[in-house]
């Protein structure tokens, strides 16, 4: 695109559209852009290279060369870690600014640490506990995040912490406690905050916007899987918090697909509501109130209070009210399950209408159609409910179909006239 545009420049000068000074400025602008692109490629290939070489070395040593003595096998297992630590030391002492080098080295150190632990286990036939191994490995990866200021290390640590909580939770408290997940996340979160402050637009920050909410959403269940908690209620609350986060000024400016908080919070809430809309006597009523549930409710209220004070009721995305409304519906449902299903359906309908209106107001076809798709999913789900007559279901389908066409036509027309 830029190259084509640069070819146009002489023509533009000839026809007096721009002067020569402007042409030079445009050329410089695109030159800068292309160096940015090369360094980004360098970073990507640096990281990929480090990951592949690290994995390759692990596989070669894992062959468990019987012809070598135990000592020489141990030395081979230790070499990658030693080399990567030397490189890291050089980088730190020289105060290297090369992102590619720092990220690549961090990835390599993390892999080498995992490799040496598993290879020592192999050489000595140690059985080990996968949960414990993942915990120690992630914990050893944490300093890399800060020493090398590495976002790859941070992402690997988030993935490690998540794998740990799932593995340890799967063991049902037989091995290491899942609560250590909270320590790991507390240790790596400062890096995310730093990314938000220093490089809010970098790709690494954007990846974090997806990794963090995904990790938290996975961990909530596994933190205490054997406790009968109001699971759906807790999750609607957690997604409510994600939606609140997505409304903070900084996050609300992000592009829609990059804002994992908004997408996961929104989709999660809607999927759970749809699941609830099927339940005549919801399973989710069974359970008890535990500390995580209390933490979620308190954090949600604090977040809501902050946002309302900062931005006022009006400017907030309407979906953030899902959790309080759901809480009321939920507790009505505990006494009268029949009303629960009706209320959930009404809530979904109301939510889709709010989203459609929001899309219309913002002139955003994506949001508008998202609301329409929600209504269609709701209708399709109710299609399987046998109590509603065919005529009524048919009419609803026709209405939704007409709505799809009508709304889109209206928006496109409005955009054209504007």
């Amino acid at each position, binding site marked *: 695109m830029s190259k084509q545009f640069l070819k146009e420049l002489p023509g533009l000068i000839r026809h007096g559209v721009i002067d020569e000074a402007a042409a030079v400025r445009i050329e410089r602008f695109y030159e800068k852009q292309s160096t940015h692109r090369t360094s980004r490629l360098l970073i990507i290939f640096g990281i990929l290279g480090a990951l592949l070489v690290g994995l390759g070395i692990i596989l070669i040593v894992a*062959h468990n060369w019987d012809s070598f003595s135990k000592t020489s096998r141990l030395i081979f297992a230790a070499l990658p870690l030693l080399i990567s630590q030397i490189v890291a030391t050089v980088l730190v002492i020289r105060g290297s600014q090369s992102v590619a080098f720092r990220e690549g080295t961090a990835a390599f150190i993390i892999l080498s640490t995992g490799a040496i632990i598993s290879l*020592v286990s192999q050489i000595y036939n140690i059985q080990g506990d996968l949960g414990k191994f993942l915990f120690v490995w992630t914990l050893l990866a944490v300093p890399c995040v800060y020493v090398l200021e590495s976002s790859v290390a941070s992402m690997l640590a988030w993935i490690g912490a998540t794998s740990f909580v799932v593995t340890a939770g799967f063991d049902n408290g037989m091995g290491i406690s899942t609560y250590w997940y909270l320590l790991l996340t507390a240790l790596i979160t400062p890096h995310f905050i730093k990314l938000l402050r220093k490089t809010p637009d970098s790709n690494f920050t954007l990846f974090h916007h997806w990794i963090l909410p995904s990790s938290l959403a996975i961990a909530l269940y596994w933190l205490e899987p054997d406790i009968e908690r109001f699971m759906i209620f807790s999750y609607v609350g957690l997604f409510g918090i994600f939606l609140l986060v997505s409304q903070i000024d900084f996050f609300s400016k992000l592009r829609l697909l990059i804002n994992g908080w908004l997408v996961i919070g929104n989709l999660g809430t809607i999927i759970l509501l749809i699941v609830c809309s099927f339940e005549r006597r919801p399973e989710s009523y069974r359970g008890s109130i535990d500390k995580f549930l209390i933490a979620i409710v308190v954090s949600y209220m604090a977040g809501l209070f902050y946002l309302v004070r900062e931005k006022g009721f009006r400017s907030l995305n309407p979906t953030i009210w899902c959790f309080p409304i759901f809480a009321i519906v939920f507790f009505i449902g505990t006494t009268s399950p029949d009303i629960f299903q009706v209320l959930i359906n009404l809530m979904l309908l109301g939510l889709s209408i709010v989203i459609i209106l929001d899309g219309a107001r913002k002139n955003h076809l994506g949001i508008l159609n998202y609301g329409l798709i929600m209504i269609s999913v709701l209708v399709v789900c109710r299609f399987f409910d046998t109590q509603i007559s065919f005529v009524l279901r048919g009419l609803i389908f026709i209405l939704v179909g007409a709505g799809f066409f009508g709304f889109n036509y209206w928006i496109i027309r409005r955009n054209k006239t504007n």
Partner: protein
Amino acid sequence: MRYYLIGLLIVMVIAQWVVPATMIFEQESILTEGATYKFKTAPFDPSDPFRGSYLTLRFAEARHEIDSSLTFKDKDNVFVNLTRDESGFAVIKNISTTRPDDGDYVVAQTGYESPVWDRERDVKTNKKEVAIIFPFNRFYLEESKAKDADRAYQDSNRDSTQVSYAIVKVRKGKSAIEDVILNGESVRKIVARENEKY
């Protein structure tokens, strides 16, 4: 700023070496100073698939009768007191939930509880026993050799005249597997000889 980073770097480097080093020292101290026990291996379903580059060992002494008042959950940690029978193989003396004061013991996990079967009358008895999962049921071999070793191990276990066992060192509740012997010969040597044939 730089000093703080260098400090953190030193902490990182030390921590990353401490973990594997502790593992090595612990294993070495068990191997050099631990008491030697020979755990007889048991025949098992030959269809049990070969897993990765290691032998999966099953032990003859893998269940132990317990007091009927005791109840263990799956994967409870227990202390297994060991002794030797007249032919020198390891047998379980007793299992307890508290650390024994003397004698050799290993920390193992419990499996499922079941009633003891009276083989002569072929009926259930009132007594119960619990499965013991020892922490040393994997023996790593070179990738290419593991499959041959697995075959040799299974052949020797199917043939009741052959005796196969694992040599395990035990020290202060920790254990390390030293070798697997099939019919009086180290499995590593058997595999090496088999490999030379081809």
